[in-house]
């Protein structure tokens, strides 16, 4: 589909690279100019990592390399040699969900879900380093992850909730977040026509 002139003569086309993906050692052969995003999606069939702008502007392609969030659209696959890569597919434990995944689901912090993998991983790196982030720290950590539908308030609240759970607190979602400010005494029924 590319319309630009292909400027290179045929090159030796593949490199073999060994690294860890979600705790498993893999060895993959791919063209040296492929980004980690392309390698994950096309060579490892891990399509949980999304492609958006592909220029470093949106954050949906974020994955963790050696525990730090990076943008896989600007990271060469072969730079991963010997490193540890985590994608959204590796977040949940064998049974159940990661606290962030559960909090995002409970709070409706994902609508279309396209930004969600990148946000979950970026937030995971934050919580791994800081068990009690302030709201400002959460906002700063997620400053590079654009969401075009949910809005950021629920996303920030979901990270706060997951952080509380991870600290062992018995926290619950705020009713206002779930039902808005107009809900009846039971907390269950939104009041539509009073």
């Amino acid at each position, binding site marked *: 589909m590319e319309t*630009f002139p292909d*400027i*290179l003569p045929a*090159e030796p086309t593949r490199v073999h690279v060994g690294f860890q993906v979600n705790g498993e050692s893999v060895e993959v052969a791919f063209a040296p100019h492929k980004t980690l995003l392309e390698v994950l999606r096309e060579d490892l069939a891990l399509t949980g990592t999304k*492609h958006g702008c592909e220029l470093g502007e949106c954050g949906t392609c974020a994955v963790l390399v050696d525990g*730090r969030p*990076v*943008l896989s659209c*600007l990271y060469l696959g072969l730079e991963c040699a010997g490193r540890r890569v985590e994608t959204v597919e590796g977040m949940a434990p064998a049974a159940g969900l990661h606290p962030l995944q559960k909090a995002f689901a409970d709070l409706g912090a994902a609508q279309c879900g396209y930004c969600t993998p990148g946000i979950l991983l970026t937030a995971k790196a934050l919580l791994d380093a800081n068990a009690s982030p302030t709201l400002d720290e959460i906002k700063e950590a997620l400053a*590079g992850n654009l969401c075009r539908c949910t809005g950021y308030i629920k996303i920030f609240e979901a990270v706060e909730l997951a952080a509380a759970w991870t600290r062992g607190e018995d926290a619950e979602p705020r009713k206002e977040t779930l039902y808005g400010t107009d809900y009846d005494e039971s907390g269950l029924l939104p009041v539509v026509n009073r």
Partner: protein
Amino acid sequence: MMRLPKFRYYSPRTIADAVAIRSDAGPEGAYVAGGTDLYPNMKRRQQTPKVVVGLSRISELSRIGEQNGRLVLGAGLLLSNVENDPRVRAEYPGLAHAVSEISTPPLRNMGTIGGNLLLDTRCNYYDQNYEWRKAIDFCMKTDRQQICWVAPGSPKCLAVQSADTVPVLIAMGARAVLSSGREEREVAVEDLYRNDGIDYLRKRPEELLTEVVLPAANGWRASYRKLRRRGAFDFPVLSVGAAVWREDGKVTSARLVLGGVASAPVRLSAAEAVLAGRPLDKESIEAAAAAAAGPSRPMDNTDFSFLWRKEMTAKFVRSALADLV
């Protein structure tokens, strides 16, 4: 997918090897550190090097340490490592702040301080994909035979200096170490730049930036202020680096540097002179700010109206100096 063009990739372990490979490649070659500038440019076919020399595995480039009271930052240090280094935070808060204003946390986990100093100049007519640029005809920065879309009569490209660390590094008098394999030279960061959007660096293409050297942190303070549309992240479209040296409550010397208004950083010598010998107070700051607007001549090729950016210059100089009172 917006794919990278094909290239041969090298991952040398030493500075000498990196320079040798880069020299052999000639005009077909490029260094890459974090790739957060080079790879988007390659995806847009602004640059299509056939040999890319990766610097990430040269451990020498990621060192940080003291040398005769000066702090030496390896050019390959990640921006996030510079930003979070306890010494940088404590002794060079102006720089720590400038780094924290660069793009976003994941990009600062990839981008390096060296890559920031050497960031390509930017322009609304250039930072577009290949098809977009082709559709209106390429401008001079892609094809030297063409005209400049911003100023069709201009003999040179006017793309904009946009790296956040540069104004504050120049203000504090930081120096850069360049290696060409066997030889090394140290230059003032200020002398790295040329006011030309295409040939914006005064360094030979194969010269490797190895270190950024910060002067001993006493007797002066530095600050950085940046104008951008979105607080979350955006390139600077006007920025001010300021540093002030003081003795007995009086300014002995000052350096004020604008970013985002020309192809090179702009020194505000007249405004600097206004401050000398006076205390840093409301009046002297007002006088310096008034002298700052003249030399600020932004072009209409980045975000916001250029007239408004010019108008904001005095206000941003005032805020940068007020940070130092």
